């Protein structure tokens, strides 16, 4: 079953997973609807596009993606440069490329392209040996170039997402033990210097966010405002939630970034602990499915791709949720399916499609 797969078979063999994905899309749309129906409409259009793309990505064998990954990576790098000079600016950030009414955020796709490229370059050899230092440095360079461009947009969240992608890949791919310890030692010694470098290059609002994270209630009307309002929204949801119309924090615009970074807070206020629990359960199901796919894959590249995508998906969810409930700093990593954003939704759909793709083609 390396080539084409019959559509009926795809649907039958992955019915529950597909239902979970559809459910997640619906929950995301309902949440956007409760904030502003315009957003829900636009996100709905993106969702339809996403479903179409999902299907297309199922039909093309994942190995084709891997083969073409250098091109994909290259094109996206060019697009990122284009954003730098000709991007669409909004809210003081230059992240988007406009084609007519459609705004694309190339940085979101870069996460996927980077993982594909890393798997292609370093994932095909015998996996029993860990990566050597030279290759690690190469992988790091491939990550840092787009990460730098993205961080200058500025978009710290997505840049961090790229770094997370690399870290996840390295964990999965394996690093030689003495290399690992050496790198670890080097990192620890270099940390103060690196921190200094990073700190001086951070934008002031990014610094503020990190400072605020350390003590959100010190200045509730100022910097801690995001975190505090987010927790107020989540906390006022209670066990059963306030419902779509009763969620006052969103309705009266107390929650900044309600549709994007803090969409999960909106969801939690509306549906309470029960709803949040359900949403977490759905995400765990997706992660479970992804790891199961990886675990049963006979192809090392398939394994790395499926588990890497799953890791990126799971960590995005956890980091965003952690930020909403105030255990992580506000870094601007969107929550898959929940946060408003077409590019992010498309990226998520393509990623999940590739997992199914691996499952369809790599199982006995």
């Amino acid at each position, binding site marked *: 079953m390396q080539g084409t797969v019959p559509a009926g078979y795809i649907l*039958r*063999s*992955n*019915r*529950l*997973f597909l239902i979970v994905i559809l459910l997640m899309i619906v929950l995301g749309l309902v949440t956007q609807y409760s904030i502003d129906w315009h957003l829900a409409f636009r996100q709905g259009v993106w969702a339809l596009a996403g479903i179409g793309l999902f299907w297309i990505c199922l039909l093309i064998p994942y190995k084709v993606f891997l083969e073409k990954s250098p091109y994909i990576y290259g094109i996206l790098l060019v697009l990122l440069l284009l954003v730098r000079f000709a991007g669409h600016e909004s809210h003081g950030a230059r992240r988007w490329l406009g084609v007519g009414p459609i705004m694309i955020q190339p940085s979101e796709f870069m996460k996927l392209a980077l993982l594909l490229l890393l798997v292609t370059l370093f994932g095909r050899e015998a*996996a*029993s040996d860990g990566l050597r230092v030279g290759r690690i440095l190469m992988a790091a360079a491939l990550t840092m170039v787009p990460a730098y461009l993205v961080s200058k947009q500025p978009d710290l969240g997505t840049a961090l997402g790229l770094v997370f992608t690399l870290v996840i890949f390295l*964990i*999965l*791919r*394996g690093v030689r033990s003495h290399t690992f310890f050496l790198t670890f030692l080097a990192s620890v010694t270099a940390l103060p210097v690196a921190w200094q470098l990073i700190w001086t290059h951070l934008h002031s609002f990014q610094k503020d966010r990190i400072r605020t994270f350390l003590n959100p209630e010190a200045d509730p*009307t*100022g910097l801690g405002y995001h975190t505090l*309002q987010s*927790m*107020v*929204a*989540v*906390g*006022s*949801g*209670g*066990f059963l939630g306030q419902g779509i119309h009763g969620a*006052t*924090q969103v309705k*009266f*615009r*107390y929650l900044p970034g309600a549709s994007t970074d803090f969409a999960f807070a909106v969801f*939690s206020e509306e549906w*309470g*602990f029960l709803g*949040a*629990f359900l949403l*977490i359960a759905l995400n*765990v*199901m997706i*992660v*479970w*499915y992804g*790891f*199961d796919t*990886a*675990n*049963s894959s006979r192809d*090392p590249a398939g*394994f*790395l791709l499926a*588990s890497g995508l*799953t*890791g990126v998906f*799971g*960590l995005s969810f*956890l980091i965003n949720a*952690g930020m909403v*409930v*105030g*255990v992580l700093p506000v870094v601007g990593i969107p929550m898959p399916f929940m946060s408003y954003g077409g590019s992010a939704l498309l990226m998520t759909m393509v990623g999940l499609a590739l997992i199914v793709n691996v499952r369809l083609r790599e*199982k*006995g």
Partner: protein
Amino acid sequence: MKSTLEFPLFGRRPLVLQKDSAPVGFLRDRPVWNLPNSPQGRFRILLVLIAIGVAILLLRLFAVQITEHEKYLRLANGNILRIVPLPPLRGPILDRNGEILVSNNMNFAVSIIQFGLKDDEDLVMDRLSRDLGVPVGMIEDTFDKVRDVLPPYLPIPVLSHLTIPQLARVQMDLWRLHGVVIQAIPDRHYMKGDLAAHLLGYVGSLSVADMKNSYARHFPPGTGIGKTGLEKQYDALLQGTPGEDRNLVNSQGDVVKKLDPTLPTEGHALKLTIDWRLQKVAEDALGDRKGAVVALDPRNGQVLVLASHPSYDPNQVSGTMSRQLWSSLLSDPRRPLSDRAIQGLYPPGSVFKIVTTMAGLDTGAIDPSRPFFCNGILRLHGWDFHDWKKGGHGHIHLRKAIMQSCDIFFYRAGMEIGPDKMASMARTFGLGAKTGIDLPSESTGTVPDRKWKKKRFGQPWYPGESLPFAIGQGYLTVTPLEMARLMAVVATQGLLVTPHLLMNAPAGSDKTVKTGLPLEHFGPVREGLWEVVNNPTGTGRPVKMKRMEIAGKTGTAQVISNRGPAHHKIRAHSWFVGFAPFSDPRIVVAVLIENGGDGGDTAGPVARQVFKTYYEDYLEAKAAPTLTERK
């Protein structure tokens, strides 16, 4: 080796994995803590990471949404709901004829709601200070004093009694004064100025201590709270219930929706037993002398007049008052803040002879028909006790002894009766105990006896001390209200009433006590009291009225001062305590004037004014025309 792994969750197809090498199936076949050195093993790291993350997330959600739900809900409501308490109108106070004594004025105050403050708090304070024309420090001080005590959505008044220009400037600036609101707060208005000031009391702003105690905790800030007098006594009745103006506001502080307000309910109106015309007559008669006037209805204890001078204007003291005014009132040597009618302790002087008489009649020490010769001096253990009248009163009996207030007669009787009997009779007349009037901080006089002396000074009672006791001097002290009540017992021939100020007092609150004194003992005493006023040689002759028969007793109480060397030069306190009409008593009046000298001459005319007005207002219209008028 073969291993089978089934995931019933996803897909129908059972998973069958075949591997030649080590067993796969990360969940089943390998202990999690093995160092991972195969790809399948390594991604257990990721798995564990995500599992830990999910666990932390769930715990945190549980804590925030369930354990601390109340806290965040309150914060959320504070975010969206702006509650402005509407202070209720404080109940008015009326006299017995419906004349309004105390009502409310409208007063505008600038208040700050903490939740409404943005990060431009300092700027807002500056603007506000410029608009109001007061130093910014003053606003911040007032605000900071209570901002941590009150919930952040309550408006905190920072300046009240705004002038129209202040009001206009703030109103125009309101759009950029985030968190500032203008409130209409009712303010107490004492219609009659300083009339009955002590009785009515005054209202102060809620102090920080008040905000913390349970009674006043739910009052809107800026609410007045009774500090003294009736305002304090009946504060709960007068308060009323605050209403709430509730608005939904968005994060910009704009009102999104007005909710139905709950309206405040006005406090109860207090109808007093006081007759303000009578009160005014009494206070006018007192003038700027230090003293007190009490008038009671002896039949039921209704207080008609309760006056104390010098007085003050409660309008200046109520609400916010200047510190200078307060300290000048406190340090005034004339003590205008003290309510002499219920707090002033004075020796009763000769008025006490009523009690001595009753005690003497009881023990047999006094026989109304037994003649007595007064030569103006009594010698005891080598001490001379003089009568107030040089040369004495000559041949007298009880009636004349009361009429002319013969000291020697009562010295003799007192020696025979002894202190304990006199003290117990004094207590029967209500002395030495609170009268139970519905006012805060009533004082209690002292009724001395052997036991008291022992306890107080550790000394036995000396026989010589019974003599001043018998004529109302020495250790004995009373309040003017106690004396009025004493006279009411004589007027009603045995009823000890509880003075009260509320007209429609709740049923069952009447605590009138029958003293059980024999009726036949009252006869000679009352006759004596009649003579005091109506006999041309009586001490109370300045009180006499043609149209109404008045009976009473004068008192000229020696003042023993322990302040300064010239205590013997301090003039005596004057008393007159009486009742009228003689045959059917309707009113008891007690007048005390500090250092007024002779009781009949100084206190008497004040009492007469009150009697006269009472007669004109209440009895003249109903009384049958007199013989002269018929002609």
